[in-house]
């Protein structure tokens, strides 16, 4: 045997051993114990609008597509699809033999039924790009004409206009496929006893206590490794941590203010998992309210705020300062935007230009934020930083329901508002948050109307994926930052503790917290 052949044989041996080891490691059985902060309001994909509900829904249901670990759409109930030359028609071929938990095979008619049912639910925006969807959502049409059943295994979706992230919408949990007969049989009870096609089927749900799922042996990908998944509901952060420390949870979050402490703890540091996610924390202005209608005032405030102190001192360096709006973790995105730099001299001169030398005449400005320890501390730091340029802030703390109402209806002039992407595409940040057609509750709470930005976003939204599309988004992002309607603070990161025996848990940028990690069918326990 030559030396090269020996090396090749050894390499082959290592690979084969590795594969065999991996297969051995993925032993079936066991219960994964995860935790939620609050009880899911519903387990019905049509009526969910929160991450907790979605976390369970993603395990119990499948959509036509799913996002892989790189957040690229991949086959799920649809084994393949075709896109027309004009990027307006998508034809999906369903996987043969995929079954609901009640044993019935999935058909294309189930897709049409599920889409139309969910379009009149809490997330109609997932379907609004389809031909005829706006009329159907309003109740002016009997069906979504853009959803057409070709045969039992083929469905066609037609769009009003091309929309590059459309496949992400098809992979969204609101677009999960449900069996009509079970919905009809259970009525409103379907939300408490869901039946899907997912790798795990529903077992029980004791409200405010726990949701239990078990593996579905007939899942089209084959049975999951785990026997069961238990999502406990524990609202108190300290209690979740104690449960983890005593071995009653396999995964939990890191308590507020303890990020560095757990990283230094010899018993916990190996369990710490921190990874960037698709979200940005920011301060926003309502540009319709004085004095924030003056770009000089907005820029002066932006020049005076130093997010690095917030990140280092308050958030313990467990997140990263955000120079732009779209997080760099987004696949295919090159972060080019730069926020208004820290420059207090420039801030003072801008205030003077705007008629408020040293902040005189500006009066105390209200800063609104929703209740949380971290938000309170950030607000106090911002208050101190703005004091240095003569701007006095009055802190207005409200719970989420009250805060979001003020923000949506335009009553708040200066406020905290982060954004977590619904799907991984710059459109979900920039168009949703800054296009003039989305003013108010749909996302543009800055009430920003810039025709040049609108034009760039409109062009990019309908272009096929690629560099020219991204370039338009990058230009729009810089214009928005220069107009200082949004001051980026930091990019979110998922911060969790994961027991070493939990294997195969994907650390996806789409997961905003450890408990929302998906898919759990890939997880196994090494005990």
């Amino acid at each position, binding site marked *: 045997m030559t030396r090269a052949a020996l090396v090749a044989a050894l390499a082959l041996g290592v690979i084969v051993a590795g594969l065999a080891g991996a297969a051995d490691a993925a032993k079936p059985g066991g219960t994964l114990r995860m935790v939620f902060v609050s009880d899911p*309001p519903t387990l019905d994909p049509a009526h969910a609008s929160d991450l907790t509900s979605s976390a369970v829904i993603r395990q119990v249901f499948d959509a036509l597509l799913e996002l892989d670990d790189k957040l690229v759409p991949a086959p799920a109930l649809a084994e393949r699809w075709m896109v027309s030359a004009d990027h307006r028609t998508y034809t999906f071929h369903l996987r043969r033999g995929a079954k609901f938990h009640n044993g019935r095979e999935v058909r294309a008619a189930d897709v049409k039924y599920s889409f139309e049912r969910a379009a009149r639910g809490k997330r109609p*925006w997932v379907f609004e790009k389809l031909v005829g969807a706006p009329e159907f*959502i309003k109740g002016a049409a009997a069906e979504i004409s853009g959803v057409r059943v070709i045969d039992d295994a083929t469905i066609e979706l037609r769009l009003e206009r091309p929309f590059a992230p459309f496949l992400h919408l098809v992979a969204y949990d609101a677009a999960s496929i449900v069996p009509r007969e079970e919905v009809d049989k259970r009525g409103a009870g379907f939300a408490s006893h869901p039946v899907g096609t997912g790798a795990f089927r529903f077992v029980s749900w004791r409200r*405010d206590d726990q949701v239990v799922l078990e593996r579905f042996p007939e899942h089209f990908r084959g049975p999951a490794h785990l026997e069961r998944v238990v999502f406990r509901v524990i609202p108190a952060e300290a209690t979740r941590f*104690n449960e983890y420390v*005593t071995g*009653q949870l396999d995964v939990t979050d890191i308590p507020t203010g303890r990020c560095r402490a757990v990283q230094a703890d010899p018993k916990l540091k190996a369990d710490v998992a921190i990874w960037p996610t698709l979200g940005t924390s920011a301060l926003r202005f309502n540009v319709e309210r004085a004095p924030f209608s003056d770009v000089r005032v907005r820029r002066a405030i932006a020049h005076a705020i130093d997010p690095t102190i917030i990140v280092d001192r308050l958030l313990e360096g467990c997140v990263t300062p955000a120079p732009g709006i779209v997080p760099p973790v987004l696949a295919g995105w090159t972060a080019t935007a730069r926020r208004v730099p820290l420059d207090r001299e420039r801030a003072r001169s801008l205030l003077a230009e705007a008629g408020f030398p040293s902040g005189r005449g500006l009066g105390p400005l209200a800063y609104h934020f929703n209740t949380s320890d971290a938000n309170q501390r950030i607000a106090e730091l911002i208050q101190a930083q703005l004091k240095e340029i003569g701007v006095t802030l009055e802190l207005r703390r409200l719970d989420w*329901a009250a805060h979001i109402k003020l923000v949506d209806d335009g009553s708040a002039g200066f406020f905290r508002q982060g954004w*977590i992407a619904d799907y991984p595409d710059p459109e979900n940040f920039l168009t949703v948050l800054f296009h003039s057609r989305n003013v108010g509750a749909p*996302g543009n709470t800055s009430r920003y109307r810039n025709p040049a930005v609108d034009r760039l976003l409109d062009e990019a939204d309908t272009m096929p994926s690629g560099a020219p599309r991204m370039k338009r988004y990058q230009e729009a992002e810089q214009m928005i930052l220069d107009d200082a309607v949004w001051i980026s603070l930091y990019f979110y990161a998922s911060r969790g503790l994961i027991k070493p025996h939990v294997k195969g848990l994907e650390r996806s940028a789409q997961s905003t917290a450890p408990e929302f990690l998906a898919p759990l069918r890939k997880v196994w326990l090494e005990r």
Partner: protein
Amino acid sequence: MVLGVTVLVFALNAAALGDPARAAMGQRADPETLERLRREYALDRPLPVQYATWLARLARADLGESFREQRPVREVIVERLPATARLALAATLVSVVFGVGIGAIAAVRARSTLDHVLMGLAVLGISTPVFWLGLMLALVFSVTLGWLPVSGYGDGALRNLVLPAVTLGALHTGTVARMTRSSLLEVVRQDFMATARAKGLSEWTVLGKHALRNALVPVVTVIGIGLADLLVGAPLTETVFAWPGVGRLLVAAVGQRDLPVVMGAVLVFALVYVLGNLLVDLAYLVIDPRMRDAVRA
């Protein structure tokens, strides 16, 4: 009184900022869907009409439908009520057993060091925040010693109940102990106590049979009033110990502006308070024969 409470809660909820439809929509809300939800929740009607509608439904034993869970409120509350009832009863038991016991010992050893220590502990129990006490107990008995579960309802086992019951009960134990002590000290000065001793009864019989029974009337009053403490403490205790009860439901519903659930839960708490005090009044008849005579007369 119960009706007054519902009016107050409804008015407070109306005064609080926030839109239940918006709160139910997550981070991104479509205006037309918001309007549809407001219509579904009847939030587009004037406040007095909303309250009158709620009252009319209540008259038919219908508490409406939860905005958040989109199920009947009755169902939402009923499935959590047993957990809260279990916790409240256990906490009452803790406060009565320990409160009366500590109070009696303090009275017997009045003005001794033991008395001062016990009364000091009683004050500590009254003034310790439920949230903090719960976490400390969990840290000692669950995390450090590993004797009891940190939280959760489990399968309904007694060991899951111990820490929440002690935490919630501690809030009221001090009050019961202090009242038992002062009431017993009052009673032991009465003439009939001298008579009992003159009959040659042992000190423990005198205290247990004659003094304690007479001293219990004000103590029972305090226990009745203590129901309010339990109701106030239940949401916090249930939160710390992840106990799936009505208290936690109420906290979440307030945050979500889920008005039908808030109204339903408050109504239940108000009824429990009224019924609890009625039971206390009836307990007087059992404890104090003079009351029975007064009723007969």
